[in-house]
């Protein structure tokens, strides 16, 4: 009994300490209006590597951009933005707790969406219950209709599993009809939720399109040696190689493909292919490699974005989720300005009703899903260009992947 009371007291003091410790980010003058934003994503754990590239720097950049032009315009004047950040340590339970903490302890005005499909889904009920709009970026699922029906405050921006896989098939079909490649596809996937789901979605689509899957294997998450899988794929003599892969294995597969001279005209690896470090590692050998996502980096907006990203965060943005993540913040910011207050319900409605002008071009949600997104990109020269998209102009034609040097 006694210990319980003590711990209860301890809880309260812990909470109080947490509250005072984190509330000191932005505003210099106490009188100035601020909008408090919250963010929970992995800084450590298996997903930290991805979040550090596409997620965290963009929060920093957006806050910098907004505040350097004086803050968000509300009805009663400008308000600077400050962000409270928490590490979910790649643990969904922790993410749920963090979102709850942001809402009920820190009492933030808005919460930026977490990183990863599982994390967005796990926290969706909390966002919904608390009435915060959730602009999920790094969440790719086929359940978008179900989820948006359940939660009237969630928005998706990167598309669904089937468009994701479908567009890869579309690209390959195009290459086939242009006579660049034949029918033989080698497909591998990482044996984790995302990879399994993509592979399962891709199989029937490939078959439907008349492709023959000549090699179809998975490899465990964290496998240290991927050379057998690349050798196996090569032995199956494919025309195209498709890997539904995660960051560390995207690198490892490509390194092995190069060493084993897996020469195909179409070579696709999924997540992390548009990372600047991918180009950094493979340099000229990256030429012609297809990957998930892509954007049109030559628009003036994106050119400026890339420049600012480098200046403010000291790092290069990637060619897919980075800009989309930034755009999701822009949508939220514009919606707040559009409403002119921090009325979350009104902001959510505003997001549903309006079109937003962002670095990736106009964004409009139909049934809470942004139907314009890039699906496949390709390294061409020093940039990763979108070569296939849903409703986004500026897709470049696909080039044949040159043989490995």
């Amino acid at each position: 009994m006694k210990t319980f009371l003590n711990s209860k007291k301890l809880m309260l003091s812990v909470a109080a300490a947490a509250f005072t410790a984190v509330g000191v980010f932005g505003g210099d003058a106490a009188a100035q209006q601020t909008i408090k934003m919250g963010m929970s994503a992995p800084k450590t754990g298996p997903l930290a590597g991805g979040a550090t590239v596409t997620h965290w720097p963009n929060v920093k950049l957006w806050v910098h951009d907004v505040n350097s032009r004086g803050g968000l315009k509300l009805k009663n004047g400008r308000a600077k933005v400050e962000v409270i950040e928490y590490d979910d340590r790649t643990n969904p339970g922790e993410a749920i707790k963090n979102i709850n903490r942001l809402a009920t302890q820190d009492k933030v005005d808005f919460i930026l969406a977490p990183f990863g499909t599982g994390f967005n889904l796990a926290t969706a009920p909390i966002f919904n219950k608390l009435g915060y709009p959730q602009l999920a970026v790094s969440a790719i699922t086929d359940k978008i209709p179900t989820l948006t029906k359940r939660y009237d405050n969630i928005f998706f921006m990167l598309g669904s599993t089937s468009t994701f896989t479908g567009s890869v098939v579309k690209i390959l079909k195009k290459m086939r009809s242009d006579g660049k490649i034949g029918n033989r596809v080698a497909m591998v996937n990482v044996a984790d939720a995302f990879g399994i789901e993509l592979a399962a979605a891709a199989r029937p689509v490939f078959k439907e399109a008349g492709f023959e899957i000549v090699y179809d294997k998975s490899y465990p998450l964290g496998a240290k040696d991927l050379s057998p899988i690349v050798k196996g794929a090569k032995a199956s003599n494919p025309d195209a190689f498709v890997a539904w892969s995660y960051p560390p294995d995207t690198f490892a597969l490509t390194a092995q493909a190069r060493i084993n001279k897996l020469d195909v005209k179409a070579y696709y690896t999924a997540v992390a292919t548009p990372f600047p470090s991918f180009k950094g590692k493979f340099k000229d050998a990256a030429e012609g490699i297809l990957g998930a996502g892509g954007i049109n980096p030559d628009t003036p907006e994106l050119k400026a974005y890339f420049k600012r990203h480098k200046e403010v965060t000291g790092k290069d943005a990637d060619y897919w989720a980075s800009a989309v993540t930034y755009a999701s913040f822009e949508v939220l910011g514009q919606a707040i300005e559009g409403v002119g207050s921090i009325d979350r319900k009104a902001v959510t409605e505003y997001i549903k009703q309006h079109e937003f002008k962002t670095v990736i071009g106009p964004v409009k949600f139909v049934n809470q899903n942004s139907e314009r997104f890039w699906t496949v990109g390709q390294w061409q020269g020093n940039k990763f260009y979108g070569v296939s998209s849903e409703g986004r102009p500026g897709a470049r034609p696909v080039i044949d992947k040159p043989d490995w040097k």
Partner: protein
Amino acid sequence: MTRTEIRNFLITIVLFALAALIPLSDSGFWLSMGITIATYMVLSTSWALFSGPTHYISLATGAFYGIGMFTVGVGIELLPYWVLVVVAAVIGAVVAALVGLATLRLSGVYFVIFTLGLAELIRQIVTWVQTTMGSSSGLYVLTNITEPIIFWELLILGIIVYFIGWWINRSRLGFALRIIGNDEVVAVHSGINTAAAKIILFVVSGTVATIVGALLAPRLSYIESSIAFSPMLSFIVVITALLGGAQRLWGPIVGVIPFMLVWDFLTATFPNQTTLMLGICFLLVVYAIPNGFAGLIEKYSHRLRGRT
């Protein structure tokens, strides 16, 4: 029942009743904190049921927890949720019994490593089966089960675990386990079927962990093997239990609560250095409180009693 037992029983009831009120407050944060604490309370307590008396350190908690999650994830479209929890419990019990049978020969560190390897093996096989059998989409568990319900479920499971623990402690089985923990040679020469005793406890412990996984699956909505079978979970269960003191039924809970609160405090205060701070706190605890909080509390309560 002795007078202390009645007293402890009443205290337990009051504590659980108070805890059950948490969801009625409007603070989502304390509710999710409560779920975290309740999860680890149940896991650590059931872990200690087996490992406390036998001194076998099991790192298989994550395996059972993952089995529970996956059972629900795979079956949610086919069977009602409650049936799945039962199915999960049965699967967990069977796996635990098989593992128990296989590991009788192992002791000490071999058991530790075996259980760690087992968790990974199960995870690999489950994901491979998932890939090869090709479920058409990912494992989604979209239900109407909200956080308060999950919290209450966990509390009820906690009460059951406490009751089982209390009952075992009073029973011949508990006595047998204490003898095994002290000296296995004496135990066998006293006629104890040490294998059976250990298996029973391992099954209880494994089944509870499986049920916890099954209960938490709706909270995650989307089941990923890397998260369901997290080895980190197994380690944290061991650590909170040892921190509290695995020899007492109430030991793990006095480990779990401060551990989670401190961890949470660190998460909130040092969002960029959570892991570093956690490591430092961890070492402080290991060196400053070598016998766990239960040992500490008992030491001071003895002292207090000694004075009066």
